[in-house]
């Protein structure tokens, strides 16, 4: 098990290398530079700026220096946010995104799993159609539309919640709901599919034949198998939810990581891009590993690392 976990963690450097490669390559081949400004800068000044951020060196050399810094836990200075290091920026944003993400993930599970189970257990009933229709709406609308509608009704019309900001529990509500909506929808659909997959399995029929009460069958036999699709979705979902959403953060003015995610790419802030990627990929690899370990516990047919 431990060997397996370590092997999986070895993926992380591979992924980071690919991204690093792609970004460095794009950075080198792209016309224009991250330091291009409206005003023409003196050639000497430009050379100085390039030297300061190390972009005067070749791609490989820069890469080497970056890795050296990374080994010391130094992600380098931001190309675009003046006077701030990437460590600074991410250090401030991660707790915010983590708090919001945790709440949103909790909400998504709290809504999605019961809705999906209900739909699956009462297939083709009003419950099934009702919850799946709502789930499909959650999947079919972009986050900025859902968020905008919530703002239109809850904030402007009924004036029941504040429109944004960060700090109080009330301010957390709307962004958490908006962030969780698409995830809740996918979880509900997966949970339903999981139930339908398992309902016809032999071991459920055996439990029924033994005369076990329905509640016990659901809790002891069904849940374990039916939850598996949800669990495997949770890996990428958690990584996405914890790195925040640009849309939600912009709509509700939250100083989280989603902002950096998008702005770093648009501003060509390459050190920040790499910093964001490191956080995201680390989360993704770790959560996927956790998912696989959870699989081993839930599904007796799965044994990890032989």
């Amino acid at each position: 098990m431990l060997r397996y976990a370590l092997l999986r963690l070895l993926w992380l450097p591979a992924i980071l290398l690919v991204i690093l490669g792609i970004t460095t390559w794009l950075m080198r081949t792209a016309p224009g530079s991250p330091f291009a400004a409206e005003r023409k800068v003196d050639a000497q000044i430009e050379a100085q700026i390039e030297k300061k951020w190390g972009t005067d060196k070749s791609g490989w050399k820069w890469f080497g220096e970056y890795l050296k810094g990374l080994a010391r836990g130094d992600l380098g200075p931001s190309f675009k946010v003046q006077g701030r290091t990437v460590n600074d920026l991410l250090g401030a944003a991660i707790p915010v995104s983590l708090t919001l993400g945790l709440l949103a993930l909790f909400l998504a599970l709290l809504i999605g799993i019961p809705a999906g189970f209900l739909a699956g257990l009462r297939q083709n009933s009003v419950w099934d159609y009702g919850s799946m229709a709502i789930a499909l709406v959650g999947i079919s609308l972009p986050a900025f539309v859902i968020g905008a509608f919530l703002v239109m009704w809850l904030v402007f019309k009924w004036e029941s919640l504040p429109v944004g900001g960060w700090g109080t529990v009330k301010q957390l509500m709307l962004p958490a709901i908006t962030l969780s909506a698409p995830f809740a929808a996918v979880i509900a659909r997966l949970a339903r599919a999981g139930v339908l997959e398992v309902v016809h399995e032999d071991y459920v029929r055996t439990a029924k034949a033994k005369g076990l009460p329905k509640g016990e069958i659901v809790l002891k036999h069904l849940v374990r198998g039916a939850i598996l699709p949800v669990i495997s979705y949770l890996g990428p979902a958690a990584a996405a939810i914890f790195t925040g959403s640009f849309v939600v953060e912009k709509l509700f003015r939250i100083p989280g990581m989603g902002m950096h995610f998008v702005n770093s790419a648009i501003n060509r802030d390459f050190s920040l891009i790499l910093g964001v990627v490191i956080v995201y990929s680390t989360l993704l690899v770790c959560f996927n590993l956790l998912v696989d370990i959870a699989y081993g516990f839930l599904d007796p047919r799965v044994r990890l690392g032989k």
Partner: protein
Amino acid sequence: MTVAAPAPPPDEAVAGRSLWQDALRRLLRNRAATVSAAFLAVLVIACVVVPWRIDHKEQHTAAKFEPPGHSAITGSFHPFGTDELGRDLFARCFYGGRISLLIGLVATLVAVVIGTLYGSIAGYAGGRLDNLMMRFVDVLYGVPYMLIVLLILVVVEKRGLVPIFAALGLFQWLTTARIVRGQVLAYKGREFVQAARTIGASRSRILLRHLLPNVMGPVIVYSTLMVPSVILQEAFLSYLGLGIQEPHTSWGLLASDGARALNPIETYWWILTFPALFLGTTLLALNFLGDGLRDAFDPKGRRA
């Protein structure tokens, strides 16, 4: 297995039901899926015809944000109202639909072609090449692809449909490749493939004529579900200002304009609601159709 069966005598030709006929029959029995398919067909026709009949570019700066109904300023009827430049939102919604649907279809097509080729080559070759190719896919899965899409769009600097097709299609093929590889692996040991090999069919013929037809079922299902996700991603790009550029538009751009015009003093609800309605119902229909296709191709465990 369509290929393996010997040709039946002509008078019994109807009796042999292929995988495809079975799937079609099951699909037609699914009401949500058939209604969705009909809706989508009507929508596509409307998106082609309406912008061609009604002008979507004509601006009336005096008549901006006119609510739905007859406008005294433009002197014409606007069922969905007008936008911030006084353009008729009804026509713009259909024009936007043209582009949203086009992006969804073309990017999906790009992804399906790449994914099918990649996956079938990996699956058919097997061994070390397969291993190498699929590990590469694994690595790409770990990449936050939206970031790369944004980078590409920022770097390319030229706005238009082609960079969006390319950037969105670039990462969508991964799952298709996995599905196709799995299918090819499952089928390549079957008797009909061996038979084809024995009579001396070339590799490319076996792949194209014998394996791919069997692989396409799951691929079609998955790509029906890919279209809505691509349309959503384009909406996100438009929200960032990296998608379709004015004067062209898409549902995503229209909806994000609507979201942007939101303010506490005056709610121009129509410029958010109508594009969102188009986007939502279309994606809903595509999802229903995709689900229906999946059930039709894989009826296991989904009996009522």
